[in-house]
């Protein structure tokens, strides 16, 4: 079992590195605003747009935290529910334990209503730490600025990782009748950079005297 997971993860790694070379990430740029040029309020405005993206069904449905169940929510569905067919992506996050996500989510993106979306990358759930589904703006913001929960990334690394990960790009170009994530990938990356340069402010930093005692400057 372990060796099967290893093989799958290895092929995931290979697919990932190949994808990075030709990805539309090549068309995005990392726009770094000058230090001190973005106010906290402007940073919070950027954050609220970042939250609109993170909480959008195109992103949140697979950012399910500890749960192994992808979600079906948003305008294509009549109600919020677990992915049909009793799908369980398991601890592998890619269904190795039961039925692999790639069984249906192939390199071709179905344009048909309720057809399986796909990208040239291994379809999978987001890492457990990136827990967006049903979370508030404050909760997601605090996760994203916490190195322990954001993959030990700076805001520049968060933004550039978005540019290079093709599975994320699908959210803005989901095909068929699916509603895309708001704004564009480039605008989303720009908002993360603006938020970062502003010191990664979160909404409750100014609304309450409580803070987590960590400086993110």
């Amino acid at each position, binding site marked *: 079992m372990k060796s099967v997971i290893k093989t799958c993860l290895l092929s995931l790694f290979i697919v990932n590195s190949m994808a990075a070379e030709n990805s539309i990430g090549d068309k995005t740029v990392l726009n770094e605003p000058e230090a001190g040029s973005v106010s906290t309020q402007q940073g919070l405005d950027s954050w609220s747009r970042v939250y609109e993206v993170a909480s959008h069904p195109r992103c949140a449905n697979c950012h399910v935290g500890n749960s192994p169940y992808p979600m079906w929510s948003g305008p294509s569905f009549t109600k919020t529910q677990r992915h049909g067919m009793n799908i369980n992506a398991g601890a592998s996050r890619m269904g190795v334990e039961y039925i692999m996500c790639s069984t*249906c989510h192939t390199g071709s993106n179905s344009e*048909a209503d309720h057809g399986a979306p796909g990208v040239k990358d291994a379809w999978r759930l987001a890492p457990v730490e990136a827990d967006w589904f049903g979370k508030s703006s404050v909760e997601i913001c605090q996760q994203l600025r916490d190195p322990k929960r954001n993959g030990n990334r700076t805001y520049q690394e968060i933004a550039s990782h978005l540019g290079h990960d093709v599975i994320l790009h699908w959210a803005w170009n989901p095909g068929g009748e699916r509603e895309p994530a708001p704004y564009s990938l480039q605008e989303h990356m720009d908002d993360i950079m603006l938020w970062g340069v502003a010191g990664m402010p979160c909404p409750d930093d100014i609304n309450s005297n409580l803070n987590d005692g960590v400086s993110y400057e």
Partner: protein
Amino acid sequence: MEINVNGEAHEVDVEDDMPLLWVLRDELNLTGTKYGCGIAQCGACTIHMDGLAVRPCQLKASEAKGRQITTIEGLGTPDALNAVQAAWIEHQVAQCGYCQSGQIMSAASFLKFKPNPTDEEIDYAMSANLCRCGTYPRIREAVKTAAAKLRGEV
């Protein structure tokens, strides 16, 4: 383009974006693989690509280039049945039979990962293969028997 199906190379003259399922059924006449929904919702078309279950209604013909495709016809033959096929016969799983080649291909792929699955694990693995005739209890038993055969216990 050339695609390899059941260990044989086939030259097929098709558009790159023709669904692989059409290539198998209409070009190569391998009609054991069934068409149910065309949108990855039923599992009737399940085959193996490089040994793993996939749904060719969702794959473009060009995605099969350089890969090893196995259909129900290539999993085993009447003279040399695959353990999963043998277990299916033992348990007389099929009712109308339409979904069954997909069920068998899914089970064969799953058992490579889980040689000794629990009922719950079987249900998670097989729920994405629909059966209008409701053969699910027999599918579950046959998967357990196939697993025991593959482990060399029966």
